[in-house]
């Protein structure tokens, strides 16, 4: 694999001049004034990996969600700017005091693509269906962990009951994972739905065809008229069709866009970004909400059991240098354990400022003495820990190698261990790690509970009943932002204070567009929302 990567890097270097001239040529065709949006056309959109499944309720990778999002509507939508929950299939909703029951009042007139109505009974069937999918619905399973069942109050009103406070459910109701499928869809097996068979939603696009590892085509839903209150226009989508082309090789993806064989491309790599500055192309950028890329410490292992050591690592990472060196200015240095696009994020940039002297002072005071090779030791123990990662994001290795150099300066030896994704899951579940390197996308602070709570993932291996647990539980027990904010703040503050995890940078979605493509937008979870997209 490393050979293959090296070959690609060599190829990239050699082919860069060719590409740049190709761009310059394309750039001369100046983008005319786009004018008002118009209907029609097929958007050829290059994506980097093949969706493993197309069923919105079963998908869990960004590639799959970017396709599935267009097929289903959700009960609610989330404002990407404010994080507020807004009407979509539900006009309004209310929840009880401890967030264990949610009642949704559905709008009238919405139908699934097989003609059946989107009513309370259909919503109940759909949610029960997700629960029945069990672990096959990876994301929905988590959101509905405490789901007891739902009841049809009247044809337009449905109530969902939970066995434990589930404030996060309101945001979850806006995600693609809890998108509503028609009752008829559940007559097919989960495997059939994955392949597109029986994917009957009420969304602005309908599934047309799937060519494995090649392309997925969606067509406009005729007569669609129940878009989210956040959509820029109402009625049908502008595009006749969306043709997702699966192009795994980043150089080919950008080259195809530059040479007009694609209208837009996702997952533009940091090295390829400069090609799309100006010259008729444009970029659409959004950082992912949720947990940022971080070194998540196992507080029970080796030197990381020492809080001073963890705090020194937190100070010894120069986030700005990571962003400037291995990423691009489109990426943001972490300002909290949560990304800046997450609702209820706190600004902890002061605590996360690079402070090499402070880190060294902490270690000096703790009795760690620099050895002959520059790495500190204490009672014969080396100041060393390993980080486990998988190459899901291309720049992971480069980022970690730079962090390794930075930590060397404070006398900390970071070992980098690359594994396959399957192995990292295994290692994470076994608890056999010093640091884990990962990020998680979710537009709700409750994501912290699933990674840090001793009742959930507990990646830091904390002991039950700690103050962080209390803060995490408190934020999950109310949907009232004013009440939720202090506990969410407290949780973020505790994580940084005790350096349970060392946040580094925010994963960012970069989509490049030709001069023809417009409004290829992101929803609150930084996945593509193509309802308003159009071609000139």
């Amino acid at each position: 694999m490393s050979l293959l990567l090296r070959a690609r890097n060599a190829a990239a270097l050699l082919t860069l001049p060719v590409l740049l001239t190709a761009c310059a040529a394309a750039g001369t065709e100046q983008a005319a004034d786009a004018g008002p949006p118009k209907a029609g056309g097929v958007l050829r959109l290059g994506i980097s990996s093949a969706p493993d499944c197309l069923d919105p309720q079963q998908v869990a990778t960004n590639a799959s969600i970017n396709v599935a999002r267009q097929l289903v509507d959700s009960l609610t939508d989330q404002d990407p700017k404010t994080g507020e929950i807004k009407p979509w299939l539900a006009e309004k909703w209310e929840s009880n005091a401890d967030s264990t029951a949610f009642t949704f009042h559905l709008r009238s007139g919405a139908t699934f693509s097989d003609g059946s109505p989107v009513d309370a009974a259909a919503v109940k069937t759909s949610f029960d269906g997700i629960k029945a999918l069990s672990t096959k619905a990876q994301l929905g399973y988590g959101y509905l962990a405490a789901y007891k069942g739902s009841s049809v109050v009247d044809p337009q009103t449905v109530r969902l009951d939970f066995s434990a406070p589930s404030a996060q459910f309101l945001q979850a109701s806006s995600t693609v994972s809890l998108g509503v499928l028609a009752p008829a869809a559940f007559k097919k097996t989960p495997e059939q739905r994955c392949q597109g068979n029986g994917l009957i939603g009420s969304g602005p696009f309908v599934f047309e065809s799937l060519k494995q590892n090649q392309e997925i085509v969606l067509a406009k839903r005729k007569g669609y008229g129940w878009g989210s209150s956040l959509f820029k226009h109402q009625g049908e989508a502008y595009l006749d069709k969306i043709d997702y082309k699966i192009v795994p090789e980043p150089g080919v993806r950008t080259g195809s866009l530059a040479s007009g064989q694609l209208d837009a491309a996702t997952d533009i790599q940091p090295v390829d970004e400069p090609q799309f500055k100006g010259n008729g192309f444009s970029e659409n950028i959004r950082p992912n909400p949720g947990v940022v890329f971080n070194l998540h410490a196992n507080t029970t292992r080796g030197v990381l059991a020492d809080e001073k050591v963890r705090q020194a690592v937190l100070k010894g990472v120069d986030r700005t240098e990571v962003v400037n060196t291995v990423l691009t200015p489109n990426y943001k240095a972490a300002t909290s354990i949560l990304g800046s696009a997450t609702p209820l994020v706190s600004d902890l940039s002061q605590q996360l400022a690079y402070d090499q002297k402070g880190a060294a002072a902490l270690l000096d005071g703790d009795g760690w003495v620099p050895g002959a090779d520059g790495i500190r030791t204490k009672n014969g123990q080396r100041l060393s820990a390993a980080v486990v990662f998988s190459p899901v994001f291309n720049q992971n290795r480069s980022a970690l190698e730079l962090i390794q150099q930075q930590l060397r300066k404070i006398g900390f030896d970071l070992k980098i261990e690359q594994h396959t994704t399957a192995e990292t899951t295994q290692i994470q579940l076994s608890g056999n790690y010093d640091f884990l390197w990962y990020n998680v996308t979710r537009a709700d602070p409750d994501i912290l509970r699933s990674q840090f709570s001793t009742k959930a993932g507990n990646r830091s291996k904390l002991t039950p009943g700690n103050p962080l647990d209390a803060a995490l539980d408190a934020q999950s027990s109310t949907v009232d932002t004013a009440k939720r904010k202090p506990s969410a703040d407290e949780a973020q503050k505790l994580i940084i204070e005790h350096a349970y995890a060392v946040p580094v940078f925010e994963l960012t979605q970069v989509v490049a567009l030709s001069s023809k493509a417009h409004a290829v937008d992101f929803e609150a979870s930084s996945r593509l929302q193509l309802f308003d997209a159009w071609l000139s």
Partner: protein
Amino acid sequence: MRRYLLRRVGQAVFVLWAAFTLSFLILYLLPGDAVSAKLAGGEAGASMTPEQVAAARAEYGLDSSLPVQYLNRLVAALHGDFGRSVATGDDATHMVVTALPPTLAVTGLALVFAVLFGGGTALLGTFTRFRWLRQALLSLPSLAISLPPFWVGLLLIQFFSFRLRLLPALGTQGFAALLLPAITLALPTGAIIGQVLAKSLATQQEEPYAEIAAAKGASRWRVHFGHLLRNAAVPTLTVAGVVAGNLVAGSVITETVFSRDGVGRITASAVTAQDVPVVQAVIVLAALVFVVLNLVVDLLYPLLDPRIARTPEVARG
């Protein structure tokens, strides 16, 4: 001849069983499994507790003991059923069978190009009287084999697709989409064929029969393309049988670079995801192709050299 055939079929069955068993063992020995790979949806926000993972594993039959899993899979495989892909939920056999035609199209064309390129350089290189041309032609294979296919593919795309806009960079639509990947695959394969053929031709040129044929008045052309080529073809054919099998392995790279569906792409993603049903379907199929190709090669030998067919029969009585 019947005994010869029976023995060959017996060998083929053994190869298929060994391929199945080895792939199972290797994938089992790797840490993690298909469920872990599938649940590693970190980017998307899924996070499962160990209990949930155990439940999912049970659902895919990954919780039973190694011999039980092996026997279940083997019995099913004998019926042509390799199970469902854990990653996509699709039937593994169906996935591989639908991925086969695009791969066969590219590898078939690549084999044609490889024979033309390898055979052409070797024949011309050994035939020509110009020393410089001989050296230039005979060094082409070493050059071609040292170029990484990944890089060649990207260069071809840059030039023919992005700059000249003559050929598509993506997809499997039409004959035009076959050309660039076939050329990419043909270069290293053709190089091997070319080197072996050139070497054999050079050896045959030294043989007394070549001089005798020339002395009897055969033209240089007839000696080279008639007598020498016929004898040099035997080792070349052996090598061609092996490299034709390698073409399928090479498709992992070309199918990724050229965004094509095919056996290579399926294999690469299935191995990463430790998707045992798919990997086994691919491996058994690849072994089958290999075995059949070699059987064809073996059956072609007697046509080129009748002594080959007779020798084993005589030796055994």
